[in-house]
């Protein structure tokens, strides 16, 4: 059904005179593809965007979220690649879309194979321990890790995730060593920390926020270039004395391959307008994201740099890269 509709859309696009294409407007419901199931980070952001689009009346048509979970984003990326030339399908990517093709031979679709549209947000992180932990600063934790190599533990996502990359960078720069335990769900990660089964966690500030307020967690440092508004007392990694590159979680939008330039311009402009709306400003403030808007050309450049940097980091982490 959808593929037939996209064919019709494609046919309409090919027949249309150039002047018509210049004033491109989506003619039917726009699909925003995410790589997580309902409730995952990207899914929540996508649904928030769908609500803002309705509220701020940014599109003449509805925007609906399509979940294509699995394969660490490979399934969603491949779905977009199949929609070649479809102007009504977009994908919400994260760092996982960049990293998976680096380590998995089956994940054939890289972001380079898709059409970059815009980068939207950068998500900072904080490094948290349980409130009754003996470490007051990150340096104290690193010292403890040095004294007991491999004994302290960090909970996080897969080993290509940002959590582990931060750990690898810190280990490399200090010579300390601690274990990394992967949990697929964010809930299990924080449960492991609260239950005292692990010692430290790289966590999204909003996720940690309530546990800090309730006195369950303490923040040692923040993984960002400058201090977050809600954590004015907590030093950044650099201020805490650890000069390692800051790895943000990145989220942005891509389109299927082979769509006309006019459509790219329409969508990049659409997302620029979205990020200027009060709804969006409030959303990223509530979630303590950084506004990371970049247009299509800047995103393409960012992608290449990020991929090169990630390849180096993964190699250092002992992860086999295939691309």
């Amino acid at each position, binding site marked *: 059904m959808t593929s037939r509709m996209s064919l019709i859309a494609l046919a309409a696009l090919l027949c249309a005179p150039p002047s018509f294409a210049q004033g491109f407007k989506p003619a039917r419901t726009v699909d925003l593809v995410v790589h997580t*199931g*309902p*409730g*995952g980070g990207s*899914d*929540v952001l996508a*649904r*928030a965007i*769908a*609500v803002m689009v*309705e509220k701020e009346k940014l599109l003449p048509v509805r925007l609906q*979220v399509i*979940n294509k*979970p*699995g*394969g*660490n984003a*490979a*399934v969603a990326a491949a779905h977009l690649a199949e929609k070649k030339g479809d102007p009504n399908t977009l994908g919400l990517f994260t760092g996982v879309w960049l*990293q*998976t093709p680096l*380590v*998995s*031979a*089956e*994940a*054939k679709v890289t972001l380079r194979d898709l059409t970059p549209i815009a980068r939207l947000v950068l998500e900072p992180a904080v490094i948290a321990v349980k409130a009754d932990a003996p470490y007051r600063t990150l340096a104290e934790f690193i010292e403890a890790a040095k004294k007991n190599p*491999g*004994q302290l*533990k960090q909970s996080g996502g*897969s*080993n*290509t995730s940002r959590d582990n990359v931060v750990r690898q960078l810190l280990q490399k720069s200090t010579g300390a060593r601690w*274990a990394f*335990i*992967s*949990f*697929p*769900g*964010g*809930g*299990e990660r*924080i*449960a*492991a920390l*609260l*239950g*005292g*089964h*692990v010692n430290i966690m790289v966590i999204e500030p*909003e996720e940690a*926020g*309530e*546990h800090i*307020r*309730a006195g*369950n967690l303490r923040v040692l440092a923040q993984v960002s270039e400058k201090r977050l508004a809600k954590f004015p007392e907590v030093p950044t990694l650099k201020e805490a004395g650890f000069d390692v590159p800051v790895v943000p979680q990145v989220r942005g939008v891509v389109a299927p391959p082979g769509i006309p330039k006019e459509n790219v311009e329409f969508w990049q402009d659409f997302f620029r307008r979205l990020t200027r709306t009060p709804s969006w400003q409030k959303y990223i403030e*509530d979630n303590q994201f950084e506004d990371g808007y970049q247009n299509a050309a800047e995103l393409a450049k960012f992608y290449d740099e990020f991929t090169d940097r990630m390849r180096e980091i993964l190699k250092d982490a002992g*992860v*086999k890269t295939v691309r």
Partner: protein
Amino acid sequence: MEILTGLLNGFAVALEPANLLWCFVGVLLGTVVGILPGLGPPATIAMLLPLTFNMNPAGAIIMLAGIYYGAKYGGSTTSILMNVPGESASVVTCLDGYQMAKKGRAGAALGIAAIASFVAGTVGVLGLMLVAPPIAKFALSFSSPEYFALMSLGLALVVLLAGRSIVKALLAALVGLWIASVGTDLFSGTSRFAFGQMELLSGIDFVVVAIGVFALAEVLANMEAREETQLLPVPKGLKNLLPTMQDLKDCRFAFVNGSVIGFLVGALPGGGSTIASFLSYGLEKAVSPRREQFGTGVIEGVAAPEGANNSETGGALVPLLTLGIPGSGTTAILLAALVLWGFKPGPLFIPEHPALFWGLVASMYIGNVMLLILNLPLVPLFAQVLRMPVYVLYPLILGVSMVGVYSVSGSMFDLLLLMVFGMLGYLMRKLDYPAAPLILGLALGAGMERALRQSLMMSEGKLSILVSRPISAVMLSLAVLVLLVPMFGKFNAWRLRALEQG
């Protein structure tokens, strides 16, 4: 006293006409979604999320939670009538539920599923209301070694699900474990048994395998018969369609068992309703005086897992509301909903928003009553489905199976897989391999592997971590016991025979 005033205030919120209406809308939608295989509560809640932004948060959470626990009621319908498990938690219900339908007791099975759901669902809410904070603390004491032990205990139940041959059951369980290992390795991100197929990177969906080896295999096996197959018997008269007093009496223990196991396993962030339903079925069978009849249509074999499945909802809301930790897909989207409405779920959520919490609790009592009233009259209606001639019923089962699988992922590849697993189920049936252990292995495989590897990461590779922690040690001992006891029974029988002969 504090609880009483809280609850009274809660009822004041839940009984507001608008909220009552939202509660009804939620449980009605939930029932429909539950009956349709495939499309589950997370997807439904996600679709409805944008509509809730203009709603009062209390009404919205009441409605979304209604979908969540309402879906658990309907889940058993296709399991009992068609051997099509609509979601992972109703797989166990197929074992005895479908057999009951074959014996003309579909109405009793559907009825007891609704009653068990009501009893255990209500107990689950009671638990959420009375013991949430201590249970949440208990749940935090579980980590990877404990989960590994819990799942080992679940897998040990294979011996209880075995038919005549324990060896065949173990083989089937191993195949299940193997299927669970297909996909992307969580720790290294590399692919396993994907054979270069992009679609296999996300692993093989549990529902695809379950519907294949249960429903498709059933249809295939029944098509073999050359003579016009007997229609499934459906007794006439409403009275004969509902469970009898004797049935309720037989299920006394199943109600308690399902309620307690469902709630406790649900409260664990790594638990889930699948393992809860399997565990309570296993426990029910282990203590039952008519153990050997399980799998042939025993009513408590439906009541226990259906109860556990519903009580799990109350349990799963414990870590969500007391700690802001979601344990499953559905609670994750409920968490997302709370965040989108401007709340901050976490340890301070209940003290700071008592009206919302108590309103939800009160609405769940009301919703469960609504569901019972809604579902019992549906029982005779659904039982009529079986009156259809086989040349209508079997294509219908095939259709329902395919739509169910397609609606999970929207992928044609999964339909091909469904055919493959239908053939596998048919072959297993021909060769007398039980299907349930395969499903159990698949259900537990991924979690078990993950828990074991996480445990070994924690201990730097020392297996002793599994027995040096008390909770995990106790559960592993239980698992060993479950595995060994039948052997002693056999040994004893053999010894007695030898004595007689000697």
